[in-house]
């Protein structure tokens, strides 16, 4: 999506997103967000991040404070671990922030960048977000989807092989 506005991704673990989907499935596909937070003893602010992350990935919708399991979320639940990874990978490729880095890495000779350079890009793209935190999320989601890798020893943020 060249030229699309770059939006941040919530500081949230993907495992939380998957837990939310499992929980929605158990509860018939729809539940009040506030009730979920209360039942799980989650801070409502944290649960909002999870809801937002799941929505960005197209797995749920959040009408009027409820969380509703969407078709893609059901597909995710029906898949095995590798089908799940593939689904997340396809969704991330469509996200402007991830696609920005995919393009950027493609332009590098060895398909990699140092963390410092990535942080600079993040600071420039999303000045109001803490870059360090955004980097961790980028790496964690990217690793799960096998889209990005990060090698701490060699300080290399890189494009995972297709």
């Amino acid at each position, binding site marked *: 999506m060249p030229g699309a506005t770059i939006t941040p991704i919530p500081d949230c*673990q993907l*495992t*939380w997103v*998957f*837990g*939310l989907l*499992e*929980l929605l499935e*158990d*509860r018939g596909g729809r539940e009040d967000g506030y009730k979920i937070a209360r039942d*799980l*003893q*989650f801070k409502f602010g944290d649960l909002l991040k*999870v809801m937002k992350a799941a929505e960005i990935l197209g797995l749920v919708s959040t009408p009027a404070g409820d969380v509703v399991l969407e078709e893609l979320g059901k597909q995710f639940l029906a898949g*095995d*671990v*590798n089908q*799940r*990874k593939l689904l997340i990978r396809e969704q991330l490729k469509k996200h402007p922030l991830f696609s920005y880095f995919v393009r950027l890495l493609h332009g590098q000779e060895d398909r990699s960048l140092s963390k410092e350079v990535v942080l600079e890009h993040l600071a420039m793209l999303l000045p109001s977000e803490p870059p360090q935190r955004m980097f*961790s999320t980028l*790496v*964690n989601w*990217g*690793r*799960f*989807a*096998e889209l990005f*890798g*990060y*090698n*701490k*020893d060699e300080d290399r943020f890189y494009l*995972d092989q297709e």
Partner: protein
Amino acid sequence: MALLELRNVSKSFALPRGSLRVLEDISFSVEEGEFLALVGPSGCGKSTLLRMINGIIPLTSGQVLYRGKQVDGINLESALVFQSFALMPWLTVKANIEMGLEARGIGSEEREKRASIYIDKVGLDGFEEAYPRELSGGMKQRVGLARALAVEPRVMLMDEPFSALDALTAITLREELLDIWQAPDASVKNIILVTHIIEEAVELADRVIVLGSGPGRVVADMKLDIPRPRDRRSEAFNTWTDKVFSLIEERS
């Protein structure tokens, strides 16, 4: 023949004056393919019992039989998963998983192969070269799980594996554990889970053994006849959680 049998197992720890009896006269057997949960109040010795089944803690008296034979030392057909994950912070995900294999004298080629199989099974592809510090609790426990699975044990012994995790992470990992255990090609056929979370036991296990404390002893041993996949909102689920809860309440 039962896969595993405990006969009059007791455990005492020596104190400066006298000794403390933590487990008394525990007898039960585990059938092939069974998912067993051991539940009880804290201090009932359930974690100690799990370690005695593995063999890292010796019995004071009694016997643990595996396929009819007494186990001396560590039962290499079992592997432990810990609440604390017990990962080596200076090793990568892949190296942590291979470590358990190296300790069992498995050669490097086979280690590589097994690590990659179980990294795939628990969804850690992409995290091979990450360090534990870079991982969330859920990802750390997936490493703990892969490390145990990689030794291809017949029995996986899990000590409160989800208790250190937040609720959403625990939901995810319980589902993933069931998927792994129920997969037709699974090498792990038996799981013994120690937990103090009653809903967790009722959601996962075929059978629940309730231990009472002071000293720990078997209070109840019940087969759960709830069809899978289990619905936490069903009446059968509620009946069973209430029953287990009342058994623990009465005895502690």
